[in-house]
C-alpha cells in the first residue's frame, strides 16, 4: 500500500476552497488516495469533508490547487465526463423510473447496446440481491432497498472511483450496521476505490482501510482505524473518535518516549510523549476508559491513584463506572461485565491505575 506512487488514483494538491473570499472551508488539502482502498473522510459538520468530496465529483470547483485522477488533472473536466460513481445521502433515485430503468440510466447515456444494458442491470441487481424488484418504482421500496439500488446504480457502469456522501444517514441503526457490512463486502469483491464521507465514527472505523479526520478544513490525522483509535496524534482526534478521559496539566519534564505531567492538584502522571510543546506549557492527557484498571489489577501500572466510585451505568455487555480521580469528577472506567467486582458500590474508594503507554500527552484543548 505504501511503496510506489503508481498506485495512487486520486491526489489533492494544495487544494483550497472558499465560498465568500473571507474564510476557507478547505484550508490546504493534500491527500493521496490509493487505488482500491476504502478511504473515509470523517469529521463534524462544516469541517470541509463534504466540500472536498464535491470538488472531487466536480460539483464544486477548487478555489486554488489541483485534483488529479490517475494521469489527468480534473480541474477542467466537467462532472459528467469524470466517470465517477456517486451515492447520495437521500439516494437520489429517479422517482419516475423503475429500478431497472434507474440502473440502465448510466449505461444508456454511454450508448451501450440494449442487450449489454440488460445483462449488466441483471448482474448488478443480483449483486445487491434485488432481482425481484426490477420493475418497482423507488417509492414502493424501503429505505434499505433504495439504498442498495443507489449503490448498484453507482457501480453498474464500472467506474474506477465511487464516492459516497453519508449514504446510510437516513437508515435506522440496525439496517445501517447491516448495510455497512454489505458495502464493505462489495468493495472487497469488486476492488473499486471508495471515498466515503460520514460524521459517524463507528461507521468510519467499521468500513475503512484508512480514515482521514477533518476539522476546520484541515486533515487532523489520516490512518488505519486501529491506529486512529489507539494512537491519536491530537486531542481533537482522541476526543472525536471513541470515548476518552481527558486530564489537563503542565509539562514538567520530558525524556525520550515519556514525559511527566503535573495536574492541577499536584499529582504527576507518567505519560507517553506524542504531541507536546515546551516544558512548562499546558498539556492534555488522553486515556481510553477501557485501558483503566481497578483494585489489584492496577498494581503493575506506572500511574496509580485512588478513585471514588460515583455512579454505575449498566449497558449489558459492560458497565461504565463514573469515578472521581485526581479532582476529575467525570472520569469514566469501562469494565466488561465478566471482570466487574460485584462488591463494588457507590462511594467506595479503590486503587486505580493505567500504563504509561495508554496515557497519551497531547496538545491542550
Amino acid at each position: 500500500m505504501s511503496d510506489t506512487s503508481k498506485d495512487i488514483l486520486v491526489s489533492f494538491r494544495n487544494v483550497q476552497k472558499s465560498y465568500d473570499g473571507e474564510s476557507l472551508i478547505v484550508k490546504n488539502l493534500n491527500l493521496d488516495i490509493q487505488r482500491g482502498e476504502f478511504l473515509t473522510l470523517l469529521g463534524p459538520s462544516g469541517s470541509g469533508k463534504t466540500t472536498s468530496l464535491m470538488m472531487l465529483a466536480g460539483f464544486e470547483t477548487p478555489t486554488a490547487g489541483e485534483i488529479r485522477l490517475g494521469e489527468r488533472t480534473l480541474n477542467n473536466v466537467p462532472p459528467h465526463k469524470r466517470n465517477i460513481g456517486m451515492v447520495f445521502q437521500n439516494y437520489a433515485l429517479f422517482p419516475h423510473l423503475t429500478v431497472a430503468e434507474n440502473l440502465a440510466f448510466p449505461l444508456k447515456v454511454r450508448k451501450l447496446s440494449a442487450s449489454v444494458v440488460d445483462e449488466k442491470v441483471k448482474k448488478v441487481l443480483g449483486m445487491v440481491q434485488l432481482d425481484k424488484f426490477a420493475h418497482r418504482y423507488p417509492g414502493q421500496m424501503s429505505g434499505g432497498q433504495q439504498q442498495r439500488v443507489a449503490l448498484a446504480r453507482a457501480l453498474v457502469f464500472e467506474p474506477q472511483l465511487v464516492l459516497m456522501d453519508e449514504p446510510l444517514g437516513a437508515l435506522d441503526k440496525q439496517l445501517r450496521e447491516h448495510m455497512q457490512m454489505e458495502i464493505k463486502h462489495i468493495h472487497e469483491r469488486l476492488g473499486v476505490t471508495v471515498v466515503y464521507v460520514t460524521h459517524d465514527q463507528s461507521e468510519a472505523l467499521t468500513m475503512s482501510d484508512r480514515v482521514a479526520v477533518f476539522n476546520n478544513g484541515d486533515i487532523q490525522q489520516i490512518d488505519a482505524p486501529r491506529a486512529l483509535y489507539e494512537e491519536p496524534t491530537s486531542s481533537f482526534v482522541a476526543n472525536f473518535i471513541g470515548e476518552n478521559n481527558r486530564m489537563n496539566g503542565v509539562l514538567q519534564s520530558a525524556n525520550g518516549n515519556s514525559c511527566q505531567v503535573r495536574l492541577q492538584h499536584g499529582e504527576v502522571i507518567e505519560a507517553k510523549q506524542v504531541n507536546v510543546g515546551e516544558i512548562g506549557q499546558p498539556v492534555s492527557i488522553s486515556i481510553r476508559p477501557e485501558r483503566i484498571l481497578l483494585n489489584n489489577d492496577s498494581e503493575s501500572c506506572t500511574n496509580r491513584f485512588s478513585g471514588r466510585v460515583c455512579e454505575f451505568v449498566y449497558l449489558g455487555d459492560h458497565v461504565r463506572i463514573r469515578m472521581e480521580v485526581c479532582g476529575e469528577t467525570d472520569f469514566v472506567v469501562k469494565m466488561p461485565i465478566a471482570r466487574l467486582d460485584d462488591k463494588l458500590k457507590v462511594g467506595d474508594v479503590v486503587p486505580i491505575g493505567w500504563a504509561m503507554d495508554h496515557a497519551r500527552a497531547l496538545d491542550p484543548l
Partner: protein
Amino acid sequence: MTTSAAPQAPILTVDGVPLKTQLHRAERMNRIKSLALIAPLAIFLILVFIVPLVAMLKKSVDNPEVHDTLPKTSAAISHWDGKGLPAEDVYQSLIADLQVAYDNQTMGDLGKRLNTELPGYRSLINKTARALPFDPKPASVKAAMTELDERWGDPTYWQVIRRNASAYTPYYLLASLDHRIDEQGQIVAAEPEQAIYLDVFARTLWMSFVVTILCLVFSYPVAYLLATLPTRKSNLLMICVLLPFWTSVLVRVAAWIVLLQSGGIINSTLIHLGIIDQPLQLVFNRTGVYISMVHILMPFMILPIYSVMKGISPSYLRAAISLGSHPFAAFWQVYFPQTVAGVAAGGLLVFIMSIGYYITPALLGSPNDQMVSYFVAFYTNTTINWGMATALGGLLFGATLILYIVYSWLVGANRLRLG
C-alpha cells in the same frame, strides 16, 4: 391469521355489543361535528353557486313566452300536423289567448320572441289584438283573420307558434352552434351570414391554447429560478411575481394600453433606438390580447410549477450528471418529468381561466379577437337575451368539462398537483 380463515363471527366488545356497532356509535359524534363545521360552506355554495348555475343553465332551454301567453293555442295547435293551415279551433284559441294577453299587457314579450323567429310577427299580432274582439261574431274566425291580415293564411306563421308551443326549446343551444330548426322541423345549418358562433368557439379555444403555451414557455424558467435561487433572492423574485397579482386586472389592462399604443413607451423606445421606423401595432389586435393575457395569467402557471419544483431535490440532477449525463440531457430526462404534475396543473388552470376571459380581449382586442364571454356579456347586458347568453355560457361550460375529462385522461388526474 386464524380469525380470517374462520367463519365470520362478529367480534364483540367487553360489553357484548358488536364491535362494528360500537365503532359506528363512537365515530358518529365526530362525523356530526365535522358535518356541522362544513355545513355553512356547503349551504353557501349551494345557494350562491349551484342553484344559480342550474337555474341559468335551465334558462338556455327555457321557452316560456308562447307557452305561457298563448296556453289555449299551444294546446290546440299540438293536434295540427304542420301541413296546410290549422283547423278552425286553433284560430279561435288564438284570438281568445290574444284578448287575454292584450288585457293583461303581456303582448310585449310574446311579440319580441316571435319576431326573433320571423320578422314582422310583432306587428302582426299587435294589429290582430287591436282588432279584437270581432264584432259581429263572424261565422268563421279563420276567414275573418285571413281577411284582417293575409299572413294568417300563410302556414309559416302558424308553424312558428307550433314550434314554440312547448315550454322548452333547443332553439338557443342550436343557435349557439350555428344551427336552427327550419320550417319543416329539421335541424339545419344557419345562414352563412348568421353563422358566427362556431368560429367564436374555435377562436376562444385557440386563443386559450396559445396563451397557455406562451405562459408555460415563459413561466417554466421563472419557476425554476424561484425554486433554485437562495431564499433571499427567491423571496424577492416571488414578490415580483405576486405584485401584479394584487393589482386589479382593469388597471393592468389600462397600463398595457398605455405601454403598447403607437405613441407608447415601447414603440417610442424602439423608434428612438432605430430598430423600427413605423410604430408597431401592438394593441387593439391579437398581439395586445396575447401580451396582456399572458402577463395576467402567468402567476397561475408559475405557482403550481414552483410548488412542485420546490419538492425536487437538487441531488437528482447531480446524480444524473454523475452518472454521465450531459447537464441539459439530465434536466430533460430527470428533472422535467418530475415537474409534469405542476406543468399539467398550471396548464389546466391557465387554459380554463383564459377560456372565460372577457375584459382583456374586450379592451385590448379588435372585434375579431372577441371570445365567447364577450357575446355572453352582449346578450346579457345589451339585448337582454337570457336564452342566448345562457346557451353560450352553458356550451362553454360543457366544453370545459369535456376538455378537463380528456385532459385528465391524457395526463392522469391523480398526477395534477396544485401545491
